[in-house]
């Protein structure tokens, strides 16, 4: 069949097909990588944000006798090696090598009282395998080997220890001090040095907060605080440390690289940690059992839960993109096989077997698709992110679908060598089977949506609920089916009206439009999901953007907020007011105050609510107005303090305030717990420590104006930027934007290809009508009237479906992970963008139709008549 020669003739259609395939492959292989990459980045961020003690794997065992004691660092190292050797495969890649990261070994006692302190002072002994590089000595020297001393007639061990400066200050442990520890089995400690962490901010120290800080506990019924510290001993001190007389615990910390886990392997990791815990428990450890302590599974599970619904939305959007792009490619294949149809018909008539003809059709399509798909696949590698199966499967699927569709379509079209197409005489009536199938699909979709709304999602399975993915798909298909089946009926009514009118063009155009031919099914099937998904995506994106803004305002409570731990003088407030860009400064006082005379405390803010409302003018958050004053000092209280009537507040002086209303949250300050909002004038002398600023002033300039180094300036813009720049959020918005643009593009291509597909038929009809007196303008109107109803109806249904999808999915969509933790609710505000999308598409399609009629005008009226009837 000389396929190359045939391809040269249809170069245009081939180029369109190749371009569509390329773009589809780039999107289908690239977007999942981008999404998955951001999921991974978010996971890493959340793991880095967690403490090392939560993330790392710690194997612990208690020593209860001399036989169980470990006296040499080498014994620790041997066990460390053993614990590493039994790591399951999924964890092996995550755990950093010994001696790196936060990995180390330790031995610590707990609950070791200082003799004679009445159980109010505890000095625990701690050994760290890497103390040498983790601490620096600020006074005295490093502890050395233990000695002995006589105590009450017995010889006891004297450990040389080092304590923190905080312990020195709070527990009066000075260098040279000696303390006897234990109530029955005594040892002594001599403080020989003070230490501080080499890097207190190191995640490492989350494993040993007791070493760096003094723990203060208020025991019930006592006024004084109980103080605990852990003093460091040397390697040599380890030889004398025994679990026989005191609580002694050994730990091996296997550091987990927070940047190593992937979001795909989370469930596997969780399982591996559980398995490892079991294996660790079975290790021979003398009398005590080893146990694994880690917060990793909880962290991972929590992350998965936060991610799941977001993942569902991404799957939905990407699934829609896949369906639409494959649909458009099929439409282009339709165009190409239609164009090549005449040649194939001739070849079939001249003795071409079905296989030869179908093979030619498939090969022609393959000529465009096969080079384009690998090219798109290759381009997708420019997108950063992990490689998922869909990255390989996407382009293969597109390729297979295009070539397969071409083969099947050509085979069906040329099954009989001569096609008698009489659909110009009568439209084929739908078979009973097809109607039954359509009713079934519509019924299933509606039933599914109903069930999804009533049942909701099984807890913990959100996102992996296949129902959530199937229902939107079924709804879209159902809407498309209903549209295709029903849109001719109202049109026929209009046709009847048009028939009564005097003008022929509306009648003719609408009649042609009402004769829904099979050719118009595919464009509807593409347009509808394209519009629905892009509207859905834009609604979600709008919802996220709005909620992000809301979250940022809830976070700051004003454009700029200055908070200071010390009082801000009046001249500082005046200086801030003079900073360029500052429109309004509202001073406020915040404090933690005593309620009544007991230990109950509440947070309070004293502020002029009226002025604050002016600061928040135009922002998505607001504060209530203070009700008109009755007797006493009015106050708004949190729900927890509701119904108490009058409260006695202990601030600068004791003031009685009267509940005048309930406020659930104070933006920028309180969201839960006990809090009060009171008038600014509550204190006789206002101690301003907070400024609420309206205006777009530079935060640094404000900070300079405040002149108080401990004051903090928080800006709403910065808070918004922080939320928007979170890896997950940024990517989701990019993906939604790219998808919306791509789908709108595909919808446009679908309309244009549909126009081109029907061009020959339309041109023939026009050429027959032109000699009857149809003017060019009327011809254009005819084409517009023929194509517009389909576009308009589809646009409207797509718009409605896209707007309705979030509601239909209801509980399944929770995007709070993308909006700084604030639940994204009420997807209604962004009606403008979707409506613009639909309207824009309709307008562009109409323009396309117009351009098409203008181009086809060039055809001489007699040409079609001379060419005779087509096959």
């Amino acid at each position: 069949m000389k396929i190359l020669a045939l391809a040269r003739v249809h170069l245009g259609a081939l180029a369109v097909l190749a371009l569509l395939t390329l773009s589809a492959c780039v999107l289908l292989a690239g977007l999942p990588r981008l999404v998955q990459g951001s999921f991974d980045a978010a996971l890493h961020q959340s793991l880095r944000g967690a403490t090392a003690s939560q993330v790392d794997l710690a194997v612990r065992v208690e020593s209860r006798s001399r036989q169980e004691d470990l006296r040499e660092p080498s014994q620790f190292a041997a066990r460390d090696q053993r614990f590493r050797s039994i790591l399951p495969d999924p964890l092996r890649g995550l755990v950093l090598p010994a001696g790196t990261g936060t990995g180390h070994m330790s031995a610590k006692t707990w609950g070791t009282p200082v003799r004679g302190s009445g159980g109010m002072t505890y000095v625990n002994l701690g050994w760290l395998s890497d103390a040498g590089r983790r601490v620096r000595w600020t006074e005295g020297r490093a502890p050395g080997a233990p000695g002995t001393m006589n105590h009450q007639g017995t010889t006891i061990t004297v450990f040389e220890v080092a304590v923190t400066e905080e312990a020195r200050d709070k527990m009066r442990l000075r260098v040279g001090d000696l303390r006897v520890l234990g109530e029955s089995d005594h040892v002594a400690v001599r403080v020989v040095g003070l230490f501080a962490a080499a890097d207190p901010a190191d995640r490492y120290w989350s494993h040993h907060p007791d070493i760096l800080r003094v723990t203060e506990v208020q025991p019930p019924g006592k006024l004084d605080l109980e103080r605990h510290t852990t003093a460091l001993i040397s390697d040599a001190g380890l030889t004398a440390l025994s679990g026989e007389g005191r609580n002694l615990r050994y730990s091996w910390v296997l550091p987990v690289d927070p940047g190593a886990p992937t979001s795909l392997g989370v469930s596997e990791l969780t399982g591996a940690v559980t398995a490892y815990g079991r294996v660790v428990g079975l290790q021979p450890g003398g009398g005590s059992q080893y146990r694994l302590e880690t917060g990793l599974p909880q962290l991972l599970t929590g992350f998965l839960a936060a991610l799941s619904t977001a993942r569902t939305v991404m799957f939905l959007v990407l699934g829609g993109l896949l369906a639409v792009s494959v649909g458009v490619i099929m439409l282009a294949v339709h165009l190409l096989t239609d164009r090549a149809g005449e040649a194939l018909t001739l070849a079939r008539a001249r003795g071409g077997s079905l296989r030869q003809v179908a093979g030619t059709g498939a090969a022609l399509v393959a000529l465009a698709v096969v080079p384009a798909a690998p090219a798109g696949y290759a381009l997708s590698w420019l997108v950063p992110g992990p490689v998922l199966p869909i990255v390989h499967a996407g382009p293969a699927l597109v390729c297979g679908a295009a070539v397969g569709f071409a083969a099947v379509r050509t085979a069906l079209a040329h099954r009989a060598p001569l096609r008698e197409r009489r659909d110009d005489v009568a439209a084929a009536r739908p078979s009973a089977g097809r109607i039954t199938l359509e009713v079934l699909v519509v019924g299933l979709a509606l039933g599914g949506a109903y069930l999804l709304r009533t049942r909701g999602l099984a807890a913990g399975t959100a996102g992996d609920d296949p129902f959530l993915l199937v229902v939107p798909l079924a709804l879209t298909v159902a809407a498309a089916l209903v549209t295709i089946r029903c849109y001719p009926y109202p049109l026929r009514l209009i046709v009847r009206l048009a028939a009564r009118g005097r003008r022929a063009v509306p009648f003719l155009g609408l009649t042609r439009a009402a004769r829904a031919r099979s050719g118009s099914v595919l464009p509807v099937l593409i347009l509808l999901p394209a519009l629905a998904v892009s509207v859905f995506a834009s609604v979600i994106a709008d919802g996220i953007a709005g909620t992000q803004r809301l979250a940022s305002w809830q976070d700051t409570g004003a454009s700029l907020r200055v908070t200071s731990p010390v009082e801000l003088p009046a001249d500082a407030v005046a200086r801030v007011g003079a900073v360029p860009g500052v429109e309004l400064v509202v001073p406020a006082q915040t404090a933690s105050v005593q309620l009544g005379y007991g230990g109950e405390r509440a947070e309070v803010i004293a502020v002029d609510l009226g002025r604050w409302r002016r600061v928040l003018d135009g922002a998505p958050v607001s504060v209530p107005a203070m009700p008109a004053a009755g007797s006493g000092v009015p106050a708004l209280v949190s729900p927890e303090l509701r119904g108490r009537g009058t409260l006695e507040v202990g601030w600068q002086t004791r003031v009685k305030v009267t509940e005048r209303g309930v406020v659930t949250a104070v933006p920028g300050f309180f969201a839960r717990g006990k809090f009060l909002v009171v008038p600014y004038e509550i204190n006789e002398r206002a101690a301003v420590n907070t400024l609420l600023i309206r205006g777009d002033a530079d935060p640094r300039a404000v900070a300079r104006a405040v002149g108080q180094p401990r004051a903090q300036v928080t800006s709403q813009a910065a808070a918004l930027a922080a939320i928007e720049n979170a890896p997950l959020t940024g990517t989701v918005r990019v993906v939604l934007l790219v998808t919306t643009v791509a789908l709108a593009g595909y919808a446009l291509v679908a309309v244009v290809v549909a126009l081109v597909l029907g061009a020959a038929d339309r041109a023939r009809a026009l050429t027959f009508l032109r000699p009857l007196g149809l003017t060019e303008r009327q011809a254009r109107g005819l084409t517009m009237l023929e194509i517009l109803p389909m576009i308009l109806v589809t646009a409207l249904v797509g718009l409605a479906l896209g707007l309705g999808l979030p509601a239909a999915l209801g509980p399944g969509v929770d995007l709070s992970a993308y909006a700084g933790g604030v639940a994204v609710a009420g997807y209604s505000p962004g009606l403008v963008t979707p409506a613009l999308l639909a309207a824009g598409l309709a307008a562009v399609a109409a323009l396309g139709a117009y351009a098409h009629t203008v181009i086809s005008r060039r055809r001489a009226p007699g040409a079609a008549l001379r060419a005779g009837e087509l096959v």
Partner: protein
Amino acid sequence: MNPTLSELEARASAPKTVFGGDAHIVCDNLVRIYKTEGVEVVALQGLDLVVREGELVAIVGASGSGKSTLLNVLSGLDVPTAGVARVAGMDLLSMTAKDRLRYRREVVGFIWQQTARNLLPYLTARENVELPIKLAGRVSGRAARGERAARLLELLGVGSRAGRRPAELSGGEQQRVAIAVALANEPRLILADEPTGELDSDTSEEVFEALRTANRELGVTVVIVTHDPLVSEQVDRTIGIRDGRTSSETLRREGAEGQIVAEEYAVLDRVGRLQLPRDFMNALDMERRVRLELESDHIGVWPVREEPSDEQ
């Protein structure tokens, strides 16, 4: 005397003479009905046709009389609804799809009216001729294929145009190349649907001459559907079709003085039905009933006379 049982049995088992015998094309009571939703078109209504091997016949008829349907049936592109259609001994009704493909590849070649529809526009004349050979997958090398194509094009007088694409050929040349394409696989039958319909009379003459060459030189049976009196006057036999039935045949023979004598015959079908030419009927005001009288060498047909006395 009534026949005995054994006589009846012998009569039943005696080999029947088949309609048309071993003729090249046999259509017996051929029916083709197109069914589309709500519309039924009976294109062939019991058509009979017999064409002998090596004949050159023309089929004429008004638009919509079923000529093209007949041709599509004979070319294996369409399947008749009922009746008998046999070409070269192959039954067109009982053929499987595979048989049908082999039939189109080896037995029949055809030419359509639209010159553009016969040839692939992006192939040269030679490539167009080679295409059916390639499609048939005949074991012949490229050289052999090229040689056959060249020979055919030469035979039809377009050898010099072998390297041209259809757009670079005149209408007559295109049709002659189309005839070469139809002849590519050495078919035994050529069907041509208005091959000169789009051509002027000079070019028509050339194309018709090419068909006659194929008929004469290669011994191929040629059936031409035409409106063109020029064509119908130059073939041995012209078959008229009316309302999906063969209605008349015109035979041409050379007279004693060398002039061509054309005699038009009405066609008598197997059960004795006969279509009278409409103008004959009109001339004698015949309708509904006629009176027949058997004479020694002919049958007389008389219009019914209204004679009240007879009825009394």
